[in-house]
Structures are given as structure tokens and as C-alpha cells.
């Protein structure tokens, strides 16, 4: 009987030990932690024109900005990827008389600026890859298809160019659950596109605040 009790005790302890082993198996780092993986983000952006661009051409904040990025999350703190997007500024001025080539032109101006940016970027993350909140510093460079269309009434003056563009920003990724695939992304970015045409003399400058949703996989 004494032996039997001892045997039960041994069994109980070994069971507890086995259970502990099992926990260790499941607490292994997730594949997202162990391997470099991919992450795709769709963003909507509020863009605030700044600087000379805002002073001379369009100063109205735009909510018509969208982008999609795909990035490779490396083992360390870095990630790199590409982002394509669409950005649109528009404002309308009440009727005024403009001097154009010595002529007086009375018109309602509709000023628009459309961009299709295509940029490469690098993110440097300030927290580990398994962190629920993962802030990062963002740098981007590339080009942008720019369409400058200025309407006098319904007459258009249009200029289209592929221009150099770059940007820098701060952002953070927020995982919806630990080790999950889905999350949100908030980013504030300064962006600059070169352009010298008509009213735009020192490029297109804006501050962009974006909200995004991301999906990651490996």
C-alpha cells in the first residue's frame, strides 16, 4: 500500500513535469518572430498641403488619398518594400480677373493636382517583431506621376510629368492579437514631390496622416 501511494505520487509529479514540457513547446516564438516575412498594408490618408505649394496653389486638406504597400520584414529592426498610391488635391476659387499674357481673364479657377506615387521605402522599427505595438521610422524615395490641371471655367491648362519624390515619417503598427496576422497601422509622413510649373514653383509638399490595415504572412 505504501508503495502504491508512492507510485501515485511519482505519477502525479511526472505528469506535472510533462505538462510543463508541453507548455514550453507552445510558447516557442511564432514564425513571425523566427522568420523574415511579408506584410501588406492598405492606407487611407488625410493630406495637408504645406509650404509654398499651400501658399501659391492649393491649401485645402484632401481626404482622397489611398495607397497600398508590400514590405519584407527582416530579422532585425529593418523592413523594406514598395508603395504605390493615388493622391488628389483640389480647390476652387471664386471668380476673379487674372492677367495672362497681357490679357484680362475673368474666370472661376478650379485647381487640381493628382499624383500616382511609386516609391521604395525602408522602415526602422523601435520594438521587437512580436511586439503588439511596433513603432517605426520611415524613409521613402521614388517617383510620382504628376498631373497638374488648372481649369479656368471649363478650359484646362494641364501639365503631366514623372517627377522625383521622397518622404520621411513616423508610424506604428498595432497587432490586433499577439502573433496574429492582422493589424492596424498609423503613420504621419512628410512628403515632397519635385515640380516647377505655373503656380507650383517649389514642388508639392504635404503632411500626410494615414490609417491603414495590414495583413502579414510568411
Amino acid at each position: 500500500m505504501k508503495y502504491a501511494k508512492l507510485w501515485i505520487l511519482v505519477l502525479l509529479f511526472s505528469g506535472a513535469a510533462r505538462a510543463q514540457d508541453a507548455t514550453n513547446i507552445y510558447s516557442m516564438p511564432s514564425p513571425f518572430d523566427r522568420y523574415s516575412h511579408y506584410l501588406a498594408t492598405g492606407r487611407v490618408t488625410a493630406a495637408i498641403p504645406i509650404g509654398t505649394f499651400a501658399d501659391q496653389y492649393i491649401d485645402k486638406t484632401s481626404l482622397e488619398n489611398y495607397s497600398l504597400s508590400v514590405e519584407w520584414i527582416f530579422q532585425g529592426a529593418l523592413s523594406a518594400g514598395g508603395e504605390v498610391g493615388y493622391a488628389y488635391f483640389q480647390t476652387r476659387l471664386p471668380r476673379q480677373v487674372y492677367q495672362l499674357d497681357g490679357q484680362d481673364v475673368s474666370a472661376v479657377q478650379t485647381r487640381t493636382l493628382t499624383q500616382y506615387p511609386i516609391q521604395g521605402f525602408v522602415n526602422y522599427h523601435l520594438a521587437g517583431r512580436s511586439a503588439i505595438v511596433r513603432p517605426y521610422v520611415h524613409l521613402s524615395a521614388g517617383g510620382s506621376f504628376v498631373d497638374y490641371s488648372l481649369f479656368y471655367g471649363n478650359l484646362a491648362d494641364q501639365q503631366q510629368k514623372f517627377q522625383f519624390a521622397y518622404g520621411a515619417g513616423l508610424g506604428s503598427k498595432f497587432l490586433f492579437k499577439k502573433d496574429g496576422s492582422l493589424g492596424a497601422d498609423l503613420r504621419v509622413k512628410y512628403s515632397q514631390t519635385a515640380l516647377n510649373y505655373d503656380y507650383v514653383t517649389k514642388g508639392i509638399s504635404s503632411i500626410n496622416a494615414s490609417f491603414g490595415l495590414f495583413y502579414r504572412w510568411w
Partner: protein
Amino acid sequence: MHMTNKIMLMTLLMGTLLSACTNDPLRDLSIEDSQVFITNRNKSVDFRQYATFSIVDSVLILGNQGYGTSLSEIDVTILTRVIAKMQELGYQYVSASNNPDVGINVAQIRNSYLNVAPMNPYWGNYWGGGWGGWGGGWGPGMGYGPGYFTYYQTNEAYWYLEMIDFKNSNVENQELDVVWNAQIRGSGIGSTQQMGRIVDAVFEQSSYLKIN
């Protein structure tokens, strides 16, 4: 899902997203706001030297589809309004046979163009430099032709007013100087109801014509 498939799906989604984003910035522009009044003058001329004017007895029709004259209701309306505005500014209306100092022409310009433009299959006319300048609106003939070209028709119709200096005409060379002109462009300019406001606007932005 296979990686390539995923990337392809994403590219497709992005393409759809981008093409859905094409804007028509003028969709909420009113007829009045679409109108553009362009005036031009000889800056060396002092209009106070003139006292009398005459005007054409009907509106001239000019353009690449032919020319002629017209005196429909809208033409009478514009001619009457121009006479009234000139009188308001201090000019005396006389007949053409009474040696007026200036003469006024009123014309409708009607042009129609068939255009061909190279077309990049992915980026529309991004590389083409656009359709800038003072052209008219896009016609209804937009379409894809064979290869990477697009054909479109532009129709323009606008009013043209000019003031000719008879007082200082160069008789030897039979030269007449246009000392002032105006173009009226935009939507609704074929409407008799709009005419009064439009003509007033043109003369209001030409305050230098006032001699009284």
C-alpha cells in the same frame, strides 16, 4: 494561396482602385462658373479720343466649317446689349455711313477638330504632354483606335467681340487696328437668357473703355 497568386491579386486590386479614383473636378461647376471672359486691349490707346461707334448689322459666323451671318433672337439680343453698354460708357451710336470713330464686330467662332494623340496603354496620355492651352472641351468622339493612338473630336464655339479704330486708320495701306477684343467661352453661352449678364461682365472688366 500561392505567393504569386497573392501578389497578382493585389496588383489587380490596386489597378482597380487606381482606375476607380479618376476624378471629374468640374462635375459640380455651375453654368455661370464655367464661363470665361477674356479681354485684350492695345495698351497704348487712349479711348477718350473716340466719341462715336457703329456696329455690324448681324452677327458674323466664322470658323473652319464655313462662314456667314446670322440674325436670330440671340444675335439680336447680344447686338442690342452691346449697343446699350457702349452708350452707357459714353459713346454715341451712329450709322456706319456717318464716319464712326470705332466699329464693333460681333462674331460666333465655330471650329471643329479631329485630333489624334499617341496613347500609352497603361498610363493614358501621361507621356503625351496633355491637352493644354485654350482648347475647347472634349468631344464625344473619344475612343481607342488601333495600336496606341486615341482619336477625339473637339468642338469649340465662342463669341468674339472686337473694336476697330476707324479714326486713325491707315488709308494708304488699308490697315485697321483692333484696339480691343473679347472672347466669351464656356457653357450656356448659346442661351439668350444668359446674354445680358455675359455682355455686362465683359464690359465691366474693361473699365478703361469708359469715356464719360
